[in-house]
């Protein structure tokens, strides 16, 4: 029986199933057309088809493969496992991964939070390997891993990372910076421009005299001086000192702020930076009272100076001049006459 079945199979090239059927001699099947098999199911595109979430598991597999390859590459380069001191030197990751909704759209399939989290975990792991490769200088590996990760990053990554950071101060065609400073209820708009150093008249005069002297010397023989002195006999050239002019609401600083403390507060950024006389200031300030306005102008000037002279920014930062003072007037509370003051306590 087995032999016959096997002969029949080879002859007819059909699959026979081990079902209980009656025996049919081959001769009677001569006029019978071979029945086509049932339409074969199409081979699924993804090997993960039968998970029911093929798109998702494809991504997971891809990432896990990438992690595997990257890990082995780093191990070959002896970059893994890293000692603790080396691990601390790697910069922290600034990543902005695609959101759950974005990933849902990308995969075209519903996504639960726990699955999203798992994917994020793999992305973070891969990103850490990329950073190791980046710091180690393995550019090619780092670039390839970055290429893999780029698919999962948000488009507005730069914008998101730049949130909370100060916009860089821009200069106009005259070299003026425009910054804003605020304190309590005051707001100041500050324009700072570098002082134009005047052409020293002494340079011009000396150049003309030297040319005249040269013309005279052509006629007269040059005398070699016999007396030598350690210091040159010519007098020191006078230094032109430029001064900082500060105009606030189109009035000079001394007229707008009569109190010396306010004046000192406005000039303090220049003093700490050591740039008094290097820049002129024009400010428009509104709101609040005298000390609030002077604090606002001071902050505006500090921001402007750090834009004009970036090397000065750490000094101003340490002097707490770059900080917008967050103290504001505390609100009055119910049951109290003022913010903190309480009514007289009565025993009964």
């Amino acid at each position, binding site marked *: 029986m087995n032999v016959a079945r096997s002969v029949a199979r080879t002859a007819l090239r059909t699959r026979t199933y081990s079902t209980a059927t009656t025996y049919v001699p081959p001769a009677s099947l001569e006029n019978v057309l071979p029945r086509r098999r049932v339409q074969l199911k199409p081979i699924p595109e993804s090997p993960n088809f039968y998970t029911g979430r093929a798109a998702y598991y494809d991504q997971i597999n891809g990432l896990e493969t990438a992690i595997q390859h990257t890990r082995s590459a780093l191990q070959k380069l002896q970059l893994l496992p890293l000692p603790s001191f080396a691990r601390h030197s790697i910069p922290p990751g600034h990543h902005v991964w695609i959101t759950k909704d974005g990933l849902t759209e990308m995969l075209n399939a519903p996504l639960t939070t726990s699955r999203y989290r798992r994917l994020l975990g793999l992305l973070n792991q891969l990103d850490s390997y990329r950073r190791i490769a980046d710091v180690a200088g393995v550019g090619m590996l780092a670039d390839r891993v970055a290429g893999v990760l780029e698919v999962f990053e948000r488009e507005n990554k730069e914008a998101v990372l730049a949130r909370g950071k100060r916009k860089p101060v821009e200069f106009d065609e005259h070299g003026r910076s425009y910054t804003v400073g605020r304190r309590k209820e005051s707001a100041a708009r500050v324009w700072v421009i570098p002082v134009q150093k005047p052409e020293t008249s002494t340079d011009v005069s000396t150049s003309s005299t030297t040319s005249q002297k040269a013309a005279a010397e052509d006629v007269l023989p040059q005398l070699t001086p016999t007396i030598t002195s350690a210091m040159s006999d010519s007098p020191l050239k006078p230094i032109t*000192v430029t*001064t*900082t*002019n*500060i105009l606030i609401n189109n009035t*000079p*600083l*001394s*007229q707008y702020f*009569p109190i*010396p*403390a306010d*004046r*000192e507060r*406005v*000039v303090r950024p*220049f*003093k700490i930076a*050591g740039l*008094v*006389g290097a820049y002129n200031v024009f400010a428009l300030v509104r709101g609040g009272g005298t000390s609030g306005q002077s604090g606002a102008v001071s902050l505006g000037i500090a921001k402007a100076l750090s834009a004009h002279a970036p090397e000065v920014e750490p000094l101003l930062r340490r002097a707490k001049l770059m900080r917008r003072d967050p103290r504001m007037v505390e609100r009055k509370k119910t049951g109290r006459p003022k913010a903190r003051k309480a009514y007289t306590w009565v025993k009964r």
Partner: protein
Amino acid sequence: MSATFVLRSSRLSAEAFTSTSRSLPSVSRLGQTRGYAQKKKVAVKQHSSGFKGNKGKDPKEKGFKKEKKHGTFLTLPANQVTNTLFKPDNRVVLDLPTYSTEALTSAAVGKAMAFPMSENEAIRAYGVPKNLVVEFRVLSKPCSVVRDVTVTAIDTLDEASSKSSRDTRLVMTGPSGCGKSFLLLQAVEYAAHNKWIVMYIPRAIKMVDSSTAYTYDSRTRTYLQPNFSYEILRRFFSVNQSALQHMKSRGELVTELQSLPEGTPLSNFVQAGLSYKEDAPAVLSALMDELSRQTTHPVLLAVDDIQALYNYTAYRDPHYRALMPQHLSIPRIVLEYASGKRAFARGAVFGAESTSNTAFQMPLELSEALGIPPLRPAGPYVARSKELAEYAQGLRNFPVPAQLSVDEAASLFELWMKDNALHSGEVRGTDGELQSRPNDELFMTKYCEASGNPRAFVWKGLLSTMSSY
């Protein structure tokens, strides 16, 4: 506080100003004491049986007490200040070039110079405006910085010495604290040392704020100010004694008490006014006439606070109407010379605006005559006094720059630094003591804070700063 200083020349000598020790306990260095306004004794009241008020109470319980007026700042004499905190061993007297006519050239611009304090010095005799008093008391010597406007003012004086005073009538104007009073003082000192006859009124406000006695004179139909006239004559005499001796009067003066014929030497003329206080206003008026006629010496009439003479005065007539300045004898004289109605044959009239007293601010008529923007916007519907406008006619504006140049400010800074007056820029020396080492950063920051204004630079900047670095 009286406007004029009583200088008891018997008590004070020139040494008092040049020595370091201020050994005169009760009289200040410049010889300023209250003059004729002596302290009055308050009569003790009888006890009444009625309302007692604060009488039984302890002085501390009495409640609010009016603060005692201390007057202008007075320095302690040096022998009373012995604590080591005041560094008695570190006292310094400034060594500066003297403010003299030969030294005042354009090369001297930006240099600090000390005023020569001789016996008959104009500063001593006439006194100086109040803020200058304090400055000269705090400094070890009365001195000033020569600015470019000083040289300009002096050149103007030189040009005016040959012309009538009608051609040179200036008023120094500028923002508060820019150096108008100092400039006027420098001009006065220059004239006094250049053989001019100088009449300097440092505080014209005292003529119009009803602080000095006034009486109505029916002959001239003006209100005379005998005490003020007397003081002016006395000081004028002490400063210009040598010049007056050689001049003789061309007209005669007859008063109730005395008569002075033609040909009297002018020094006797003035002495006559000093011997009888009631005659002082008449003598002063006649003296001004004599000075206008003579051509031997040019005459400088310098008035600080001149804008006070163009405002309604604080005096009242019997009907309680405010008197105008031209109704008072001495302001009338000044106004007539300032307007050119009377003029010296040779000389000039210099005035300086002052912004200290807000009761006597720059009036509209004067600001229009000078061509400077008025304090309040004034259109054609704002009333202007025709008389005051007439008295302001022909006055020229002499603007004093609001900002010191860097060189001038540097000289001023060095002046105060050398006088050991600055407390900023402290560094710890080798002995562990804090020493003040003012540096250029202090100079630059204070100059910037003051926007170049001299008073703000020195008083609000250098001397009032709370920062020690």
